[in-house]
C-alpha cells in the first residue's frame, strides 16, 4: 500500500513546540555550550553567534549566524536545534530550513531586515516561533503561520520585568476575550489588529492556538518558575545561562525549576549556591533605540 507522507502540515508544524512544553530552550553559541545545555536537560537549543547581552554590547547589525556554526551545533546534539532569522528576512529562513534546523525564530533580537512585513511562514515546511508583546501581535504572527509564540520580554538584560508584562498582557487579554459577548468580538479584533477567525478561536478555547513560551530576561530558577506560574508553556533562557558564573549548574537548576514550578521547597533547593548570575541591566535603563521588544509590529 502506498501512503501519502505529508510533511509541513499545520498539525506537524504545531506539534514540534507541543513536545517542548514544560521545558527550557537555551541560547548557545558553539557546540560545546550546546552539549552542556543538552546534558543539563534543555529540550532544545537556540544556535546563535552572540547571545543578546553581547549583541547589545557590540552593537552593529545582528544577522543570521554562520551556517558552519549552526551545522556544528546540529551535529553535536540530539535535541532540536533552533536558529534565528531577521524579521522579514525570508532568505535567511530558507537557508536555515535547508541546513536542517528544527524551528526558526523570526527574532527581534536580530536587526530587522524588513520594517513593514514579517516572513510568510506558511511557505515553510518547518515551524516558526515569533515574539509578541500582546494578543494582537501574537495573533498576527499566528495568522502569518507562526507555530509557536514567545513573549518578547527584553532580551539580554537579565531583567524579567518585560517578560512578565508581556505574559500578563497576552494571558489577560485572552481571559478578557473569553467573557466577551459574541457581538463584541469583531470590534475587539479590529482594535487589536488581529484576524477575526483567530479572535473567535481564542474566545472559544480560552487559549492561544499554538504553544506559548516566555522569553527575554529570564536569569534565575525563580524567574522561570514565575513565568510558568503565570501560565506560559515553557521558557527560553538566552544570556542568563552562559553569561553566569556556573552555566551547567544554573542550566540544570532552571530546568528543574521549570518542571517543579509549583513546589517552593524544590525551588529553594535548586536555587542554592548557583554562583554569580548574569550581571544584567534594568529594562527601564534602555533607551527606545536599545529596546529590542519595540522591533516588529
Amino acid at each position, binding site marked *: 500500500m502506498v501512503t501519502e507522507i505529508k510533511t509541513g502540515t499545520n498539525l506537524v508544524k504545531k506539534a514540534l513546540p507541543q513536545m517542548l*512544553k514544560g521545558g527550557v530552550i537555551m541560547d548557545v553559541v558553539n557546540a560545546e555550550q550546546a552539549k552542556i545545555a543538552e546534558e543539563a536537560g534543555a529540550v532544545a537549543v537556540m544556535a546563535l553567534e552572540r547571545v543578546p547581552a553581547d549583541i547589545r554590547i557590540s552593537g552593529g547589525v545582528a544577522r543570521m549566524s554562520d551556517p558552519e556554526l549552526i551545522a556544528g551545533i546540529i551535529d553535536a546534539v540530539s535535541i532540536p536545534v533552533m536558529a534565528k532569522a531577521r524579521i522579514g528576512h525570508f532568505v535567511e529562513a530558507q537557508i536555515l530550513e535547508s541546513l536542517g534546523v528544527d524551528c526558526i525564530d523570526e527574532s527581534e533580537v536580530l536587526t530587522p531586515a524588513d520594517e513593514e512585513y514579517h516572513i510568510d511562514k506558511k511557505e515553510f515546511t518547518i515551524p516558526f516561533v515569533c515574539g509578541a508583546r500582546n494578543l494582537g501581535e501574537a495573533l498576527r504572527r499566528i495568522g502569518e503561520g507562526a507555530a509557536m509564540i514567545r513573549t518578547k520580554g527584553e532580551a539580554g538584560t537579565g531583567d524579567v520585568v518585560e517578560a512578565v508584562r508581556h505574559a500578563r498582557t497576552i494571558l489577560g487579554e485572552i481571559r478578557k476575550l473569553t467573557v466577551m459577548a459574541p457581538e463584541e468580538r469583531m470590534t475587539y479584533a479590529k482594535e487589536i489588529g488581529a484576524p477575526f477567525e483567530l479572535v473567535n478561536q481564542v474566545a472559544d478555547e480560552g487559549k492561544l492556538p499554538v504553544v506559548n513560551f516566555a522569553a527575554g530576561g529570564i536569569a534565575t530558577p525563580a524567574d522561570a518558575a514565575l513565568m510558568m506560574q503565570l501560565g506560559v508553556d515553557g521558557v527560553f533562557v538566552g544570556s542568563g545561562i552562559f553569561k553566569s558564573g556556573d552555566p551547567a549548574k544554573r542550566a540544570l537548576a532552571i530546568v528543574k525549576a521549570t518542571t517543579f514550578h509549583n513546589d517552593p521547597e524544590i525551588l529553594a533547593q535548586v536555587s542554592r549556591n548557583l554562583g554569580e548570575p548574569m550581571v544584567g541591566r534594568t529594562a527601564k535603563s534602555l533607551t527606545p533605540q536599545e529596546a529590542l521588544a519595540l522591533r516588529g509590529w
Partner: protein
Amino acid sequence: MPTSRPVVGVLALQGAVSEHMRLLDACGAHPVEIKRSKELAAIDGLILPGGESTTIAKLTGAEAFDAIMDDIKERALAGMPVYGTCMGSIFLAKEIEGSNQGRLGLMDIKVRRNAFGPQRFSSERQVPIPQLRDEPLNAVFIRAPIILYCGPGVNVMASIDEGIVMARQANLLVTSFHPELTDDALVHRYFLSIIAENECNLKSGAVSTRSSVFAPVST
C-alpha cells in the same frame, strides 16, 4: 470496561501532557498529572508522553528528587499498564541505539531515536493498525523514533516502510507516533482496555498480568 472511571496518570515532567489528558478525558477516564513518586499510588495506568528523552532522563535519574523511576518500574513489573508515545517508547525500551541514557528498559525492543531526521521530515500519514480496526489511523510522527527490533514476547501492531511504529508486550504499549495530537481516540481506548483487562485480572486474583493475550477493542 470497569464500572468506575479508571485513573490514568500522565507523567508531567516535560512534554505534550495536556493533549493526552484531553483525549483520556474524552474517553471517559480520569486523567491526573504525575510529577512525584508519591502520586503513583492513585493510578491504574500511566502514559509516558512525547517530549525530550534526554530531559526526562535528567529529571528522573541521579538528579531526581525522589525514586520516581524505580517506583514506575516496580508498578509496571507488578502489572500496571504503561503506554509510551514517542519519547515514552524510548523510555520503555530495553535498548536505545548508540545511547546509554537513563530509561526504564522494561520492554524487549530496540529503538533508534530521531530515525526520520530533522523536523522537516516529520510527517502525518495513514498507518494501518489491523489488530484494532480496518480503517487506518492518521498518525503524526514528530522527530520520531523507530523500533528496530522486537523480542519474541512482543506483539508488533503497526509498521511503515521505515520500521515498526507500534508494539505491545503484555501490559506495555508503545507508539512512535502521537495519537494524542488528533481527535481519533483509537489507541487511547485500546490502552484503556488494557487497563480494564488488568483490573479484571487483579480482581480474579491472578498473580501476573504479564501475558501477551490480545484484547480487541471496539471503537
